[in-house]
């Protein structure tokens, strides 16, 4: 049981190739981190897995527990258990947070079946308490006027409510102060499970102090160029990405 990315190539609509053959396996129960300099293709990888239509997959495959997902639409992938926590979550004016998450849960139910409102709010409030989010966030429009930290917490709240099988967190640590980072990490750690695989995309080792990954990968120029254990993150923090300028190790 894994999210299996194999020789994945993807371009922008204008043909510029961003992913140049990504290979990565994220088994359930493991947390993987991808680090790498700006422009290496980390965010593109997360969006391609989620199904963003602004990218064209030219070859390769992404299999969820053996099943190809590249044929599926964005919303289908989400309903089938892929979750992307956005680096820059959109604002949705006029749609309350509670109604938004409820619509997302409703989308997972068979036609004619409705969410049990009482159970839903109970669940929502317990997750919000864990993320130290004020109750007033349920009535506020999704991400509208939220600070950077509040937006990221809101992403984790959605993730906790939707209980996906595979979570991809795109630079969830960016723009967070240390207190907010700890709270977000608490949420992510609470989601750790043998039934779930996670991919953290980050610039900084700091996040990995609070969410300990099983494996760390380095991405550069559209490929995974190095993989190792959690200690690799410390090495990168200390030495930077200078080694990327040397001839490829592989």
């Amino acid at each position, binding site marked *: 049981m894994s999210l299996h990315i194999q020789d994945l190539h993807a371009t922008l609509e204008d043909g510029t190739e961003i992913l140049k053959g990504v290979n990565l396996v994220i088994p359930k129960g493991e947390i993987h981190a991808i680090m790498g300099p700006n422009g290496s293709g980390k965010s593109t990888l997360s969006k391609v897995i989620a199904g963003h239509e602004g990218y064209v997959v030219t070859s390769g495959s992404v299999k969820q527990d053996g099943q190809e997902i590249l044929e599926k639409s964005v919303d289908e992938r989400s309903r089938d258990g892929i979750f992307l926590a956005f680096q820059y979550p959109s604002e949705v004016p006029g749609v309350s947070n509670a109604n938004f998450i409820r*619509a997302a849960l409703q989308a997972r139910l068979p036609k004619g079946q409705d969410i049990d409102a009482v159970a839903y709010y109970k669940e929502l409030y317990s997750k919000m308490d864990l993320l130290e989010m004020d109750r007033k966030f349920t009535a506020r429009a999704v991400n509208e006027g939220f600070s950077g930290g509040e937006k990221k917490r809101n992403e984790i709240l959605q993730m906790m409510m939707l209980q996906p099988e595979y979570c991809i967190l795109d630079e969830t640590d960016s723009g967070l102060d240390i207190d907010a980072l700890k709270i977000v990490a608490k949420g992510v750690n609470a989601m750790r499970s043998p039934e779930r695989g996670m991919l953290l995309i980050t610039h900084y080792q700091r996040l990995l102090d609070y969410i300990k990954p099983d494996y760390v990968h380095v991405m550069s120029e559209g490929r995974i160029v190095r993989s190792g254990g959690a200690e690799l993150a410390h090495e990168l923090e200390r030495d930077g990405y200078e080694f990327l300028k040397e001839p490829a190790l592989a």
Partner: protein
Amino acid sequence: MLTTTPVTPTYLPEWFAARQQAAWQRFLTLSTPKRGDETWRFSSIKQLDFSAFRRNPINGVNDLIARSVGLEAPAAKLVFVNDELVHVESNLPAAVICLPLSEALVSHSDLVQAHFMKQETRLGSAKFAALHEASLSNGVFVYVPDKLEVAGTIEVHHWISGENSVIFPHTLIVTGTSAKVRVVDIFRSADDVLPGLAIAFNDLSAGQNSKLDYVAIQDFNEMTRVIQINETSVFRDASAIGFILNTGGSWVRNESLSRLEGPGSRSDMLSVAIPAHDQEYDQRTFQHHVSEGAYSDLLYKNSLYDDARTIFSGLIFVDENAHHTDAYQTCRNLLMSDTCEANSMPGLEINADQVKCSHGSTSSQISDEEIFYLRARGIDPINSRQLIARGFSVDVVERLKCDEVEALVLEFIDDKFRRIAT
């Protein structure tokens, strides 16, 4: 309808009969709007051929009364079918007058006369206002005396029934000093496909320091043409809300005029419109600051689907002595298809000093990134777009500041979105 002189029933007061006759003469004399008239710019003039419409007898009354569902516990409820009152219930205090207009014209003739159609229709439909005045046979008259605050909401249903039926609903609401009232008009068709015509008029007069909230929900079938004229006068320290929801109709012309008559008066002119298919909504507004120190705020939001068209033309007009005016006007269009068309003509004319005014209109589409965000949570493309479009309208609805009425308006909005989705 357009060739026969309407006859005023003999039991109605003389002044009213005289006004109806004069109005008929005006209707005959005034020229039909034509292409090139500024007040009809971008309008589909061909829609103004009303020769096929006629008065029709009513049937299926019990069914329509049963379908007249709105608020859970309205303060009063009246149901009209083709302008004929078929049902009434009321829990209003005895001092409040809430009567069918035909009855009020007899029992409170002077009071009706003092407030009935006092303003000049200046936004283009003077001819049709005259036709309305000459032809109207009924409507609602609400008068709330000084210092009386009506708890709850008065709910009025207006049905069009039969093929090519015409109705002339009239709502006249008057609040005394420091009084308060809220009225909701709901306009619907008995049948889904039969063509109809409604030439409606709402006459609102908010007395000193009073609060008058008026909501019109227009949900006729998509074969019905509508002219709806709203004229509001707001006196010293009074506040009036006029809210229009347009979901139905094939062609709808709204003319909304607010006259700020006293210092400290406030007028909120609000509208949500969700045209789809080939519906056309033509909105003309006028914020007339007669008095100094008054406030008006207009917010119109249109979500356009398919080949729908909207026209918004708004003018803030500040009279010479209306110093210290605060006046705002915003029209926002959300374009939900590549083939819809939104025309906006905001305008401003200021003849006084120390005035705060702004006007603006915008048209935008939902960005791909917004849609991606919702879809990445599992919500399908149609629902994603509708959730965003609904959210776009919600802040206008929330300006009503009344939970039960907001919920009612949202029900009609959601129902429209369901119809669009299928």
